């Protein structure tokens, strides 16, 4: 177990293993996304009140769920970097910030597109929506702080502290629809008790949530690999890789 933990600290090993994971995970993710989209869009019945516009939940809900989970991942990776000085955790944290920001943006954008026909407005200053906007700013703050430092080791630590502080906001975002009376509906999918969504709509949604988690993982790993190559550009193993590409 410990040797696995130590191996995680080695850039060439991480680069190799992430390549193997991606070779399987990427096709699977694309397949799951395609199946989930087709199932959700073509083979479920329209909602009796919203008609067909509700189908955007197959993108909106998974993106929002993964955007929140991604923040935890970023903050925990930052904490691991602070506590155990693991360089690869720093790589993961740096790679997670822009990906998380993109997922947050997708959730906000699809919400606006759905809100126009349903609520009659693109945007309301409602607890859930505002707090998701704050989440976007938190992600962007981490990206901006990382770029501002010349010393990248200090940048990683400073961003870790910032993302840990920002973690206070995540439960607030998650619970905002229950704590405040808001236009955004409360959660329909519950881990305990009955979900308030019909199972014919629930199953494709669950598939899409799983697919979005996988998509986040793929984006994160791809981003991490790019970051690894950039950081280790002068090292032996990257040069070997590069020369292998140049002379096939």
């Amino acid at each position: 177990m410990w040797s696995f933990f130590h191996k995680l600290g080695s850039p060439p090993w991480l680069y190799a293993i992430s390549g193997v994971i991606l070779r399987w995970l990427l096709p699977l993710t694309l397949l799951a996304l395609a199946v989930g989209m087709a199932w959700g869009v073509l083979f479920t019945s329209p909602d009796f009140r919203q008609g067909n516009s509700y189908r955007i939940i197959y993108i909106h809900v998974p993106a929002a769920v993964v955007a929140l989970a991604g923040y935890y991942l970023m903050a925990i990776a930052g904490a691991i970097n602070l506590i155990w000085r693991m360089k690869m955790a720093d790589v993961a944290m740096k790679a997670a910030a822009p990906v998380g920001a993109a997922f947050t943006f997708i959730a906000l954008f699809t919400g606006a597109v759905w809100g126009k026909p349903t609520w009659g407005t693109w945007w309301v200053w409602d607890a859930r929506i505002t707090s998701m906007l704050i989440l976007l700013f938190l992600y962007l703050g981490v990206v901006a702080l990382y770029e501002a430092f010349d010393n990248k080791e200090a940048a990683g630590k400073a961003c870790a502290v910032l993302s840990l502080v920002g973690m206070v906001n995540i439960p607030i975002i998650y619970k905002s629809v229950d704590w405040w009376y808001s236009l955004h509906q409360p959660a329909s999918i519950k881990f305990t008790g009955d979900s308030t969504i019909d199972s014919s709509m629930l199953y494709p949604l669950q598939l899409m949530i799983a697919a979005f988690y996988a998509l986040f993982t793929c984006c994160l790993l791809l981003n991490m690999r790019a970051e690894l190559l950039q950081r280790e550009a002068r090292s032996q193993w990257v040069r070997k890789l590069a020369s292998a590409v140049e002379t096939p």
Partner: protein
Amino acid sequence: MSVPGTWQFCVRLVRRQLLLAVRRPIEIGNPLLFFAMVVALFPLGLGPAPQMLGGFAPGVLWITALLSNLLTSDSVFRSDYDDGSLEQLLLAPQPLYWSVLAYIGAHWLTTGLLLAMVAPIFALMLNLPLAALGTLVTSLLLGTAVLSLLGGIGAALTVGLKRGGMLISLLILPLYMPVLIFGSAAVQAAVSGFPAGPYLATLGAMLCLAIALAPLAAAAGLRISIDA
């Protein structure tokens, strides 16, 4: 030479910061002037109708207080970083948590406390009902303390950067937002005749949490900035 105890050390730090502020009164006056100027902008921008201004007053006062706090939080550690005394502070035997809390406390005494004191004057100019003045002052007293603590984190993380000023607003404004929501909601409730207690209690809870945790984060940020 005897080493001062932690309490004594913190008292000296606060006294030193206050003395520095008093020697340069413009440093104290600037945020207050900024507060006055920005408050004056709203009637010009929104129109001087008293009814409408009264409705906007809680939000206007709170946003202005937040901005003037934001403007000053960049300077909490800046001059001590520049002249190197911050490094001595990190080497001192006293726990950094308490020294950071002393810095932030001094910052609050010279900004938030004074803002809360002068806010009623501007509240009356904006036609805020008299009944809400007490809530306004209480919410500002509690809220600006939270803002100063959060601003301390941002200041500690960016103190080593040359262009920290713009960045700090991006870092800490998202964290300021919950304080703004509850602060202005408290005043709004007092204006409409609802009890403001729950909002003030939430602000107090935020303050407790911030006192416990924010200096830790700020201390970690200072160590990172000094190492960089």
